[in-house]
């Protein structure tokens, strides 16, 4: 039992959970508006779209990958789905086509990374512009409103007072965490991120799985796009702008690294929750909105510094200097 507690306490999730709890308690005392159903739901609804993307991004970053194009993919699927709906296509088909566009874009990203061997950052950075550009081309820069009522049934109803985007996000997070943490299939992504060559020699289908992780990321971005479009009842060409950085920030706060091999969906969710919480707190406390971006940066830096210090202490290791110090020759 004691060992179990010690292990939980060492987890990155626990550290963020404690911070989330501290912020929550502090805010409950400092603002009467904080712990109200209305505020909490608004907070969760605000981060639900990004939370959906966080699930797949965690999986991708655990495998050592990286996707800068999620915000643009979201806008692209949103625009295409809305276009098809306005053409009178049945909701089911329009949604399915939108989702498959997300998956196909993921496949393209994955193909270039896993098969062609391009750098993930560069590949998906081009995607960031490509799909935002396509969105602008097909919409002519116009927002697309006037979507059918039956489509809005995805993102607008409430169950027990809770909006569906929150429910969808929570279900995906719980499912995603369970699978990535425990299932044999998804555990393989940790091995790929930990040491790709060794994973290959361990009989893991590295290329195929890497492609799949991009497909999932594209697909989840598309799911987020559909949910968001339905919620707003319109497709916006600027939807998801800058989202990739907020999502990646949350995943790193949650314990993942750019090298891969670590991270969890729960941690990433707590990461995005913490960011949302801090912004909500700043709002309620009447701090200027201009501070928000600054605080996100500070949170990320604090999280990785604490993590690094913890690791250094664990290892008790000394890092050799890369260059031997020597007297400068003066000429």
């Amino acid at each position, binding site marked *: 039992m004691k060992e179990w507690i010690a292990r939980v306490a060492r987890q990155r999730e626990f550290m963020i959970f404690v911070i989330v709890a501290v912020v929550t308690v502090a805010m409950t005392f400092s603002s009467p508006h904080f712990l109200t159903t209305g505020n909490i739901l608004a907070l969760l609804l605000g981060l639900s779209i990004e939370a959906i993307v966080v699930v797949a991004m965690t999986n991708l970053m655990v495998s050592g990958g990286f996707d800068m194009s999620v915000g643009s993919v979201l806008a692209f699927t949103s625009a295409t789905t809305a276009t098809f709906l306005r053409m009178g296509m049945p909701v089911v088909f329009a949604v399915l086509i939108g989702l498959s566009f997300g998956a196909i874009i993921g496949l393209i990203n994955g193909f270039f990374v896993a098969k062609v061997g391009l750098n993930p950052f560069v590949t998906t950075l081009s995607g960031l512009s490509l799909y935002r550009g396509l969105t602008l081309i097909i919409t002519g820069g116009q927002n697309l409103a006037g979507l059918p009522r039956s489509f809005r049934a995805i993102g607008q109803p409430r169950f027990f007072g809770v909006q569906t985007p929150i429910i969808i996000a929570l279900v995906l997070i719980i499912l995603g965490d369970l699978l990535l943490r425990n299932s044999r299939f998804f555990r393989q992504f940790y*091995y790929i991120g930990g040491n790709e060559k060794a994973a*290959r020699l361990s009989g893991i289908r590295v290329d195929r799985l890497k492609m799949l992780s991009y497909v999932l990321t594209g697909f989840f971005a598309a799911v987020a796009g559909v949910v968001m479009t339905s919620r707003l009842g319109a497709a916006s060409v600027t939807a998801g702008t800058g989202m990739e950085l907020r999502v990646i920030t949350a995943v790193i706060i949650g314990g993942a690294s750019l090298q891969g091999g670590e991270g969890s969906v729960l941690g990433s969710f707590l990461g995005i929750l913490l960011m949302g919480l801090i912004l909500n707190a700043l709002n309620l406390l009447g701090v200027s909105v201009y501070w928000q971006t600054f605080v996100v940066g500070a949170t990320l830096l604090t999280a990785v510094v604490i993590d690094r210090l913890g690791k250094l202490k664990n290892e008790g290791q000394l890092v050799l200097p890369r260059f031997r*110090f020597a007297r400068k020759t003066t*000429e």
Partner: protein
Amino acid sequence: MADYILEARGMVKTFPGVRALDEVDLQLKTGEVHALVGENGAGKSTLMLTLGAIHKPDSGTILIDGRPVSLASPHDANAQGISIVFQELSLVPSLSIAENVFANRQPINRFGMLDRKKLHRDTSDMLKLFELDCLDPSTLVKDLSISNQQVVEILKAMSVNPKVLILDEPTSSLTETEVEQLFVNIKRLKQQRGISFIYISHHLAEVFRIADSVTVLRDGKKVCDAEVKDIDEDFLITNMVGRKIDNMYGVRAPTDAIGDVLFEARNISRGDDFKNVSFSVHRGEIVGLSGLVGAGRTEVGRAIFGAEPIESGELYMDGKPLSIRKPQDAIARRVGYLSEDRKSQGLFLNFSIKANLIANHLSDFTGNTPFIQESKVNEFSRACVKDYRIVSRSVDQELKFLSGGNQQKVLVGAWFGINPRLLIVDEPTRGVDVGAKSEIYALLRNLARQGVGIIMISSDLMEILGVSDRIVVMQSGRIVGQIDGKDATEEKVIAMAAGSLSADGGCEE
């Protein structure tokens, strides 16, 4: 002139929980090569790092030319004439030889810009020392052979005009010819420049080839020192390990029988890597695959495992065709491959022992569910730790905190875990202590005893001779001979492996 160019007295260094150096003395005579040997964790590296002032000792005195000195930083150590050549190459591949040699201290002109002319002239002068003045100082380091990169590394250490050069496992990435060249270079520096060397090594054979005297460390203590001419290899092993190892390479019990043919490769080829390679492995047999570095042994091993393609030829298991195109096919048919480079290709260093032990057979731990069952993993991992004597705090300990020998035992455990019928082990004891080595040999023999066929690829001739039931020798991608383990001698195997090949010079670039 004092007797000793460098003397360390009563060096003590503790890390949390470990006494890495315990009252260690070391004496280095002027112009000698002094070997420092011991198992991993014996304190060799710590001693080296304290002499180089990268670690600060808790107590102890360092004397240079008989005068006590205080070394506060690596800079001080360099100024006092101590320079270290690190094991891991610390060169910048995309910069030139000259820029690497004078890294951080390039000559500058009066405008504060690099004085390239002088830089190149100085570097050429230094290259002459190794008769490598055919190399252009502006050659990029990444275009050099490993042995010439090592020379650049040594030159970099030499550029501070040291009296004492400390070499840390300098031969770990060199081929036999390159080792030969390194030894020539060491002797030359010793004679022409009067430089004294501390030579840290795992390979005891090297000690006898290059060193004049030796100090043995064990568990942070100095066990003994001696003149090399007065001792033999058994003396060193006994002192390093602290017990006598009788049968280093494991024993074949009289009841160990070699069965029928298990595996056969017929005329497998791939381009220039290997051509028409045919050999068989019987049940319970350990076949040693020997040859010089570059003979194609690893390529054959990886090709059988499906990690690299085969262009033509067939594989057979139990007389039936064996189709392997990817590593996962091989594992499904219970063929395993233990990679030669455990750090970059074999293990997940940031992961726990148990995560590593199950990596190549995850499906054994799921029962009939999609989920990995922690209890099964723990049970298996604890059994492995016990059976293979993996020294660790718990199965949750990360692999990077284990010694090389224990890491290797984890890798062995992972591959024994697939219940192999054929296991290919590539350099199974590279960078492993003498003690752990003999344990790994015993494990391999034990596995063979259960009817498994083993192909052991190795550059260590003593290991090949000691362990193999049969030795297959390769040269330039072809099999050039087979010899029964009982009849094999060092000379016979070398004669086959080297054939009509002549040694390369140092200036092949």
